[in-house]
């Protein structure tokens, strides 16, 4: 017996060792752990593998992990045991990570390392492709974080605006789908305020959705207060009038005075709300539960595209529309950073990954897929034929100069072309402007390239982290969210509940008195 077990043991060890040897293949693929927002990238994997193999000659395995809020991500990076190599947080989260010293500087791209067998063009430091507007804005807002420059730590990935998603056809019914009315109301659309302190429309009451997000809500409330003159004459801690501040300065003002005003405004706004949403907003708008929603541009674009309805208008129309209020607004960025906990063995893969995502082709594919604006400058995309062919294929453009014969035939056989030529598409995609909003939602910034009605970048503010005031802001938000449930209606409910109990007791009593139980029991016994 004993001998048998020893023999078994030896056998098992042998098998185990054998397996280990078998595993030890000479060509282990490289690995990379990517930590990104959910639904925030196109189906990149095959493209990246090909790209990586083309440059390094090696295979790569990617582990892709997602998060749903910056706070979850921050907790994981700062408190957790995460071993992620490359992360894509929002600007204020990057600020926090730099402040807490959790990131390594990128200072990357030693060109000579990657030039073997390749031309330098196209992959060395694609960060150069990033829109100048974005780079400047980041520099202006976060220029110096304790002696560190944010641009040394991040490469911008996507950006977008904060605006109002609304049901166009319901607005038409209410008679407020009008450029003048909406331009007058601006952020007041979310407060049912026509911009002059009156209700925009009675029927809008209870039809407004806000985001369950304190940062966005805070920014929007400040803009609204500014527009409606409620900040007139008020001064911040340094004695400056709030009305004199730039959008960037205003959005980053947090003091007790302002918190109190915002608290009151938001508490009042609750009477106008349908509710606060996290991700049901689009559905509520399409089902007619609500008419207005605070939204980020990418989500809004996606929602608008989904809202196509054949029965609207003469030949079908989008039911929803997006509006970036004029005057002050908010713009935000997400960017790729490398946390200190990264695996140094993956360094090459990380850099190539970031580089890959900043190529015009990836930018074009990403914009198609997720709706937000790529930080890669539009003229870089337009200068790249591969990127153009991606756009042409997705948007069914009859563009023989960018698509091969087989693709063209496939598109024609499928649903036909949506655009007759590349120029038509380019006009629509890059120069499109909404008749009410007047801007191109995808490229909202004023530049030589975009259309004339686009906004000056200085009218948009970038929001920093609340910093030391974070706790006060959360406290304020907690107060606002819990407001409205007060004791009086609760007391009425109590009375009702007691009435129900008493009523129920009487009912039972009544039945007992009538002796109906007795009869039934007797009947059964017989």
């Amino acid at each position: 017996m004993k001998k048998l077990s020893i023999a078994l043991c030896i056998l098992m060890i042998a098998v185990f060792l054998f397996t280990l040897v078998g595993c030890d293949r000479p060509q282990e693929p490289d690995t990379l752990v990517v930590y990104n927002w959910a639904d925030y990238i196109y189906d990149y994997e095959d493209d990246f593998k090909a790209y990586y193999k083309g440059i390094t000659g090696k295979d790569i395995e990617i582990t892709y992990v997602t998060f749903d809020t910056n706070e979850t991500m921050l907790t994981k990076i700062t408190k957790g045991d995460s071993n992620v190599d490359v992360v894509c947080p929002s600007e204020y989260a990057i600020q926090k990570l730099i402040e807490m010293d959790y990131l390594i500087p990128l200072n990357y791209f030693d060109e000579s390392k990657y030039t073997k067998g390749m031309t330098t063009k196209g992959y060395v430091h694609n960060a150069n492709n990033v829109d100048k507007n974005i780079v400047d804005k980041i520099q202006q807002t976060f220029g110096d974080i304790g002696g560190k420059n944010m641009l040394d730590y991040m490469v911008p990935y996507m950006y977008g605006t904060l605006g109002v998603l609304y049901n166009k056809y319901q607005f038409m019914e209410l008679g407020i789908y009008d450029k003048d009315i909406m331009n007058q109301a601006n952020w007041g659309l979310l407060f049912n305020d026509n911009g002059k302190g009156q209700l925009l429309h009675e029927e809008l009451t209870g039809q407004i959705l806000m985001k369950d997000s304190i940062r966005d809500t805070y920014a929007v409330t400040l803009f609204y207060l500014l527009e409606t003159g409620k900040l007139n004459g008020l001064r911040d801690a340094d004695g400056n009038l709030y009305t004199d501040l730039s959008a960037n300065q205003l959005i980053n003002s947090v003091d007790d005075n302002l918190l109190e005003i915002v608290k009151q405004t938001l508490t009042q706004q609750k009477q106008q709300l349908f509710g606060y949403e996290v991700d049901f907003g689009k559905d509520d708008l399409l089902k007619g539960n609500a008419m207005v929603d605070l939204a980020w541009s990418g989500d809004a674009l996606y929602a608008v595209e989904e809202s196509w309805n054949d029965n609207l208008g003469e030949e079908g129309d989008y039911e929803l529309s997006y509006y970036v209020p004029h005057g002050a607004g908010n713009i935000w960025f997400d960017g790729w950073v490398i946390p200190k906990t990264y695996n140094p063995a993956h360094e090459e893969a990380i850099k190539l990954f970031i580089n890959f995502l900043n190529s015009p082709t990836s930018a074009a594919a990403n914009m198609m897929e997720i709706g937000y604006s790529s930080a890669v400058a539009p003229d870089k995309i337009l200068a790249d034929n591969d990127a153009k062919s991606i756009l042409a294929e997705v948007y069914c453009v009859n563009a023989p100069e960018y698509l091969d014969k087989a693709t063209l035939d496939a598109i024609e056989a499928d649903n036909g072309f949506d655009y007759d030529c590349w120029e038509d598409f380019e006009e629509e995609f890059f120069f499109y402007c909404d008749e009410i909003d007047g801007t191109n939602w995808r490229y909202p910034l004023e530049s030589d390239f975009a259309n004339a009605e686009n906004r000056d970048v200085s009218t948009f503010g970038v929001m920093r982290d609340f910093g030391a005031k974070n706790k006060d802001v959360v406290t304020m938000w907690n107060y606002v969210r819990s407001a409205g449930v007060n004791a009086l209606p609760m007391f009425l409910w109590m009375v009702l509940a007691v009435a129900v109990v008493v009523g129920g007791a009487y009912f039972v009593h009544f039945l007992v008195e009538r002796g109906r139980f007795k009869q039934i029991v007797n009947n059964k016994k017989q």
Partner: protein
Amino acid sequence: MKAKSKFRFTRKALAYPYMLFLLIFVVVPLVIILINAFLTDDNSFTLNNFVEFFSDNGGGLTVLGNSLLIGVVTTVICLAIGYPVAYFLAKYHASNKVLVLFFIMPMWVNFLMRTLSTKAIFLALDVELGMGTVLFGMVYNYLPYMILPLHTTLVSIDHSFIEASEDLGADKFTVMTKTIIPLSLPGIMSGITMTFIPAISTFAISEVLSSSKIFLFGDAINMHFSKTTNSFGVGSVMSLVMLVLVIVCNVITNMTSKDEGVKSAL
């Protein structure tokens, strides 16, 4: 052979994996919450989290008060509806097992789905979402938890008690108040616990059925953990407060039903 202290596979050993599970996923997290409640952001000892919560400058206590009130109202309504239902179910138990099934059936559907469809129905009927709809959702969701323990107790009441009290001259009303209700007290207590505790800690129902307009204690705790990165301390204090409430509820339940057959199911 010498006696060795050897691992013996007894029936007790079957419980070890779950004990280990409890230790790792219940005891350890509770200890972590307890420690967190006394820590600042940079991990030094503080009592400020308690001060912050109990001074109520962010409305934390108000939220707790609201939640408790809503919990009480829900429980009272559940009891008012549930007791007669359980009584009749118990009365006609022998002939009508299908009826009991009807009351358990909603529990087979995921509660989030039930709540979402309740919302859809309210919206289709043009009912404004708010306190009323939240209470409806709560009662709807927790009613089976009230009915089941009541039903179990009422069914198990020996009919001879009732006959005895009738023989001693009690009329129907007195039989109800002096015999049936006292005998079903353990069921009432466990029904109350099973309704009240989830009702004060819920947040999904209030979120869905009021479009997040009604903010309960569960929401507040959730906010402190998932929407911010530096108020884990206050969030932990709130979780502890909730835990204390649950323990208090259980102690009361167990005290009232000390010598009775049915103890708190929790």
